[in-house]
C-alpha cells in the first residue's frame, strides 16, 4: 500500500456534494453577522444600536463593552520571539481604535444571516477618522503610527549573520569579491483564499454543561484550549471538531480568530446554537494576507558565479497586528539560502505595521519571497557573467556527500538549520532533461523566426517541513475487524484519509477498506499541534505508524498464545495473523481484538467464535496482566529533533506576446523530492495545486490598497485567481532521498508546489523579454510599461 497511487478515498464524498462543512451544520442555529470598520484607521466615538433594535428576528447585539474580561483583552500572541519587541494583537471586538478596514466592531445575533445583516446596516458607529499608514516603505520610521506605542511602526527587527568558513562577514566578503551586484525586489500581497471561508458553529448543552464547537480550522485542539480558557470552562467540557474543511492554506491555522471565541461565548450566553459563516468579502478584509515584502540585495561572487557574500535587507509588511509572531519573515530569512552554500550571509529584516489586514502564514509561508530573492540573484549573476543560469546554480549547490549540512542559522522551530538529506545536483540534472534545457535555444530561435517570443526559467528551493513539537496517532482494532485510526491534526482536503490509511494498512497488514481515519476531532484525539508547515504526513504519518507497530506487537503477542507459536514467526496478511510457512494456522485480527478484552459475554458472531480460544488464562493471574490494557489499540507520538528538508527544482517555458504583452505559460516542469512517497498521485496533486497558486502569485494575484487603506479588489471579480484555463499542464519527476530523521523516511509535500513559481516565471519572462523582472506579480499592462521604459 505504502508508495502506491491509491485513489483518494475522500473524493467520492467531497466531489458529489456529500461533504459536511461548517455551514452545512446547525440548521436551526442563530446566525451572526458583524459590523466591521469601513475605515483603515479611526477612533470609535460612539456606537448607536437603537435603530437596529426593531429588526424582526434580532436576538442580541454585542459591543466590546459587553464582553467579559477574558474576551475584552487583546487576543493571544501565538509565537513570541525576542526580536518581536512590539508584538500587538487585536481584541475580539474593537475597543476604541480600529486599525484596518474589516476589523470587527459589533457582533449581531439574529434568527438568520439576512436579518443579522439588516440589523448591522442600521447600527451607527461614529468614527473619528485617523490618517492611515499604507505600504511598508511609508510605514517604516514614519511619525504617523498604527499603534501609538510602537515607534516608527517597527514591530520586530532581526539581524542574522553567518560568516564564511574563514570567519569573514558578509559585508566584508562582498567588498572583497571580484564581482558585485545590488538591486531591489518587490513582492505583492496575496492571500490563502480557501474556497470555504472561515466558519464557527457552537452548541451549548446546558444540561451537561458542555460545549461543542465546529470550526473550519487547521488546529482544532488549539482552538479547544483557547475556547476553554477564554470562556472559563473545564477543558473536558469543551470539544472542537474540524468537519470537512474546504481548504485552509495557512489562514485557518491562526487561532483563536475573534469569531472562534465570540460565537461559542454567545452560544453559552444565549443558551442556543449559534453559528457564523464568513462570506467572501469578510474573508478579504477580516482574515489574513501574506507575501508583501521589499528586499534589498547585495551580492559578491567570483568568475564562476560562486556566491562569496550575500546581504539581504527585508522590509516585511505585517499589516495591523502580529498574532502569529514573525514566523513569515524568519522563514524568508532562513529558507532564502535554498540548496546553496553561500560564502557569508547577512540578513536583516524589519517587520512593520500598516493599516491593512494582518499577515499570517499562507502556503509557502515566507519561502516564495526568499526563493524569489535567491533565484533572481542567481539569474543576475549569470547575466552579469554571461554564463548559463543552471551553471551558476550548479556551482553553488550543496553536494550529496555534505549531508547533514549545517547552514549555521536558527530555523523557525528554534532548532539549528541543518539539512538532513538531498541530492541537489541530480535534481538539477533531472530538471534540465525534463524541460529540455539544453535544446531550448533552438526552440527559441525557431519561434523567433515566426515572430514569437519564448523564454525559459528555472528556480530551486529547499523547504523545511515537518516541524515539531509532536503529533500523535491512535489505532484501534475492534471486534468486527475494523481499524479506526485517529490523529489530532486536521484535514483541509489533502487526502489524509487516504495516506494515513495506506500507512496503517502497510503497518498492520489490513486491507484499506477496513480502515477508517478521523482527523481534527478532539473527542477522538486530544493532543495535537495542527496542520501547517507541510507537517501532517511527516508528523501524524510517523505517529500513526508507531501506534500501528504497538498494535501489531500486541496482536502478535496475543495471537502467539492462541496459535502456540513464537511471535517472531507470525505475520499479518489481509487482516489475519498467520504462522509464516504454515497454511491454516491463522487467527483473524477481529478475533484477536475480542481476545484482547477479557469480557465474559459476546455481542456479535466474531466475539462468539472467539470464545473457542478463551479460557486459557491461568487461574492465579489477573485476567488483565500487569502492564497490559484491555483492547487491541495503541497510541504513540512522534516528536522530531528538528525539521526534515524537502527540496525541488522547477522550470517553465513561457511565451510573451510581442504586441499584446500577454504572458502564457506553455510548459511547467517539476522535479520534486519529499523523501519516500506514500502516494505519488496525492503528492502530484499537491504539487499541481501549489503550482496553480504559484502561477496566481506570479501573474495574477495582488491586494490593491489605495492610499486610504481601502482594499479595491475585495471580490473574485477583481482579485484574480487563475482558472484551470490559466494553468499549464505540469510535468513531474520524483526523486526520493529518504529522511534519516523519521521511521518512514518521509518529508513534507504540501507547500512545495507554490514555493519557487514566482521566481521561475520571472526567470522565464526575463529570458523572453531581455528586461530585468524585479517584482511579482507581473501583469500584461506592467510588462507593456516595462517594454516602453526599456532602453
Amino acid at each position, binding site marked *: 500500500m505504502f508508495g502506491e497511487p491509491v485513489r483518494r478515498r475522500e473524493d467520492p464524498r467531497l466531489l458529489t456534494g456529500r461533504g459536511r462543512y461548517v455551514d452545512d451544520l446547525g440548521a436551526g442555529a442563530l446566525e451572526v453577522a458583524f459590523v466591521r470598520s469601513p475605515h483603515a484607521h479611526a477612533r470609535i466615538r460612539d456606537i448607536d444600536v437603537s435603530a437596529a433594535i426593531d429588526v424582526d428576528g434580532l436576538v442580541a447585539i454585542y459591543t466590546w463593552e459587553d464582553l467579559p474580561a477574558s474576551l475584552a483583552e487583546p487576543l493571544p500572541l501565538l509565537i513570541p520571539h525576542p526580536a518581536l519587541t512590539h508584538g500587538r494583537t487585536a481584541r475580539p471586538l474593537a475597543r476604541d481604535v480600529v486599525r484596518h478596514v474589516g476589523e470587527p466592531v459589533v457582533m449581531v445575533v439574529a434568527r438568520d*444571516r*439576512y436579518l443579522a*445583516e*439588516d440589523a448591522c*446596516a442600521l447600527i451607527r458607529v461614529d468614527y473619528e477618522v485617523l490618517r492611515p499608514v499604507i505600504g511598508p516603505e511609508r510605514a517604516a520610521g514614519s511619525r504617523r503610527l498604527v499603534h501609538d506605542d510602537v515607534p516608527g511602526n517597527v514591530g520586530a527587527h532581526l539581524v542574522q549573520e553567518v560568516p564564511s568558513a574563514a570567519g569573514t562577514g558578509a559585508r566584508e566578503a562582498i567588498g572583497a569579491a571580484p564581482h558585485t551586484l545590488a538591486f531591489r525586489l518587490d513582492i505583492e500581497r496575496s492571500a490563502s483564499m480557501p474556497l470555504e471561508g472561515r466558519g464557527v458553529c457552537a452548541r451549548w448543552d446546558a444540561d451537561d454543561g458542555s460545549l461543542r464547537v465546529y470550526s473550519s480550522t487547521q488546529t482544532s485542539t488549539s482552538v479547544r484550549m483557547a475556547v476553554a480558557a477564554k470562556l472559563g470552562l473545564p477543558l473536558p467540557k469543551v470539544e472542537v471538531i474540524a468537519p470537512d474543511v474546504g481548504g485552509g492554506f495557512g489562514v485557518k491555522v491562526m487561532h483563536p480568530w475573534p469569531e472562534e471565541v465570540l460565537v461559542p461565548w454567545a452560544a453559552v450566553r444565549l443558551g442556543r446554537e449559534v453559528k457564523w459563516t464568513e*462570506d*467572501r*468579502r469578510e474573508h478579504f478584509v477580516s482574515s489574513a494576507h501574506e507575501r508583501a515584502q521589499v528586499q534589498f540585495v547585495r551580492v559578491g561572487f567570483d568568475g564562476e558565479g560562486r556566491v562569496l557574500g550575500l546581504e539581504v535587507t527585508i522590509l516585511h509588511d505585517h499589516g495591523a497586528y502580529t498574532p502569529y509572531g514573525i514566523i513569515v519573515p524568519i522563514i524568508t530569512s532562513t529558507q532564502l539560502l535554498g540548496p546553496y552554500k553561500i560564502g557569508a550571509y547577512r540578513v536583516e529584516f524589519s517587520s512593520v505595521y500598516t493599516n491593512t489586514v494582518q499577515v499570517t502564514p499562507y502556503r509557502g509561508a515566507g519561502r516564495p519571497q526568499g526563493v524569489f530573492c535567491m533565484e533572481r540573484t542567481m539569474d543576475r549573476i549569470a547575466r552579469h557573467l554571461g554564463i548559463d543560469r543552471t551553471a551558476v546554480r550548479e556551482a553553488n549547490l550543496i553536494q550529496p556527500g555534505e549531508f547533514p549540512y549545517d547552514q549555521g542559522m536558527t530555523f523557525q522551530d528554534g532548532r539549528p538549520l541543518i539539512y538532513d538529506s538531498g541530492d541537489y545536483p541530480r535534481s538539477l540534472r533531472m530538471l534540465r532533461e525534463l524541460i529540455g534545457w539544453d535544446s531550448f535555444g533552438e526552440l527559441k530561435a525557431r519561434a523567433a523566426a515566426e515572430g514569437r517570443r519564448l523564454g525559459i526559467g528555472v528556480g530551486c528551493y529547499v523547504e523545511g517541513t515537518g516541524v515539531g513539537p509532536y503529533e500523535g496517532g491512535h489505532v484501534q482494532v475492534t471486534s468486527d475487524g475494523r481499524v479506526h485510526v485517529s490523529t489530532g491534526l486536521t484535514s483541509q482536503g489533502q487526502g489524509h484519509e487516504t495516506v494515513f490509511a495506506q500507512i496503517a494498512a502497510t503497518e498492520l497488514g489490513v486491507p484499506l477498506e477496513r480502515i477508517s481515519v478521523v482527523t481534527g476531532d478532539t473527542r477522538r484525539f486530544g493532543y495535537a499541534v495542527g496542520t501547517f508547515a507541510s507537517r501532517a504526513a511527516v508528523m501524524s504519518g510517523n505517529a500513526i505508524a508507531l501506534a500501528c507497530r504497538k498494535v501489531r506487537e500486541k496482536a502478535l503477542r496475543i495471537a502467539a498464545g492462541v496459535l502456540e507459536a513464537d511471535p517472531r514467526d507470525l505475520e499479518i496478511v489481509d487482516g489475519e495473523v498467520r504462522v509464516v510457512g504454515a497454511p491454516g494456522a491463522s487467527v483473524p485480527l477481529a478475533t484477536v481484538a475480542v481476545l484482547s478484552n477479557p469480557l465474559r459475554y459476546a455481542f456479535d458472531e466474531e466475539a462468539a467464535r472467539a470464545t473457542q480460544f478463551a479460557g486459557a488464562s491461568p487461574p492465579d493471574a489477573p485476567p488483565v496482566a500487569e502492564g497490559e490494557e484491555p483492547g487491541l489499540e495503541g497510541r504513540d507520538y512522534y516528536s522530531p529533533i528538528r525539521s526534515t528538508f524537502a527540496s525541488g527544482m522547477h522550470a517553465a517555458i513561457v511565451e510573451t506576446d510581442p*504586441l*499584446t*504583452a*500577454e504572458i502564457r505559460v506553455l510548459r511547467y516542469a517539476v522535479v520534486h523530492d519529499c523523501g519516500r512517497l506514500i502516494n505519488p498521485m496525492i503528492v502530484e496533486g499537491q504539487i499541481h495545486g501549489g503550482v496553480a497558486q504559484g502561477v496566481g502569485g506570479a501573474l*495574477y494575484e495582488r491586494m*490593491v490598497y489605495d492610499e486610504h487603506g481601502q482594499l*479595491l*479588489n475585495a*471580490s473574485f*471579480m*477583481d482579485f*484574480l485567481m*487563475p*482558472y484551470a*484555463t*490559466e494553468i499549464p499542464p505540469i510535468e513531474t519527476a520524483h526523486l526520493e532521498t529518504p529522511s534519516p530523521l523519521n521511521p518512514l523516511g518521509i518529508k513534507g509535500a504540501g507547500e512545495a508546489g507554490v514555493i519557487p513559481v514566482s521566481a521561475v516565471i520571472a526567470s522565464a519572462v526575463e529570458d523572453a523579454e531581455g528586461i530585468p523582472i524585479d517584482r511579482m506579480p507581473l*501583469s*500584461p*499592462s506592467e510588462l*507593456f*510599461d516595462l517594454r516602453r521604459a526599456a532602453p
Partner: protein
Amino acid sequence: MKPPPFDYHSPRSVGEALEILAATGRDGKVLAGGQSLIPMLNMRLAAPGHVVDINRLTELAAVTVGPDGVRTGALARHAQVERSGPVAAAQPLLRRALRLVAHPAIRNRGTVVGSLVHADPAAELPAVLTLLGGSVRLARRGAVRDVPAARFFTGPLESAAEPDELAVSALFPALPPRSGTAFHEVARRHGDYALAGVAARVRLDDDLRVAAAEVVCVNAGPVPELVDVTGDCGHRAPGTADWGAAARAVRDRIDPEADIHASAAYRRHLAGVLAERALRDAATEAAGG
C-alpha cells in the same frame, strides 16, 4: 453578502409584469438571469423595494431569425443564442461575441437583453448591438417603443429603459452582402470582462474593395461608440487596405480609463492591436463569404 429586504413579484404574463412595473416605478427592478443583479443585491449595492422576476414569462424566450436579422426575446439566455445554428447563419457575430462572455455556467442563466439593459461598457453585447445598428424594444403599460442602439446606451450602467419599462426583445440586424465581422479581445483570464476588445464590420463593394469599415471597442469609454475608419484604410482591396492606419485612427479616437488591471495607455495600445486584427479578419470574411 445577503440582500436587503425586498418584495418579490413573479408575474405570469407580460401584461401583469407591466402593471407591476407601473406600480413600483423607481422602486422596482427587473430580474432576468440575475448574473449582474444578484451580486449587486448581495453586496447591497442595489436596494430596490421590489424585484420583478420575469423568468416565468416564457413568451419572452423566443429567438426568431428573419430577413431583417435576429430578434432575441428578453428571456433568451446567452447559451441558447450562442448555440443556435440559424442565429449563427443569420448573424455570426453574435456567437463570436457570446463565446467571449463569461463562462458556460453564467451564459446558461444570463440573458442577451439583460446584458444590453445592464449597459456595462465592458460587456460584449452592447458593442455588438451598436456595431450592427440594432435596437431594443421597450414596453410599458399601453405603449411599446424601439430604441436604436445609438440612443439606447446613455452612460456606464445606464440605458434608455425607464423604471416602468420592460425590455421585451432586441434586434440584431443581418449583414448586407459582401460583409464580414470579427470580435477580438484580451482578458486577464479566460472568460473575464475584457481589458480591451474590438468588434469590427467590413463591407466590400462590387469590385471587392472596402466600402465601409467600422469598429466598436469594449471598455473604451462610458458607452459603446461606433468608430468609422472607412476613410482611414483606403478604398482598396482587403489585402492592400491600410489596416494599420485604421487601427491608429481607432486608438486616437477612443477614451479608455485606467483601473487596477490595466493602464489607459495599455488599453489604448491593445485596442489598436485588436482593431487591426479584427478589421483584417472581417475583411477576409467579407471577401471570402
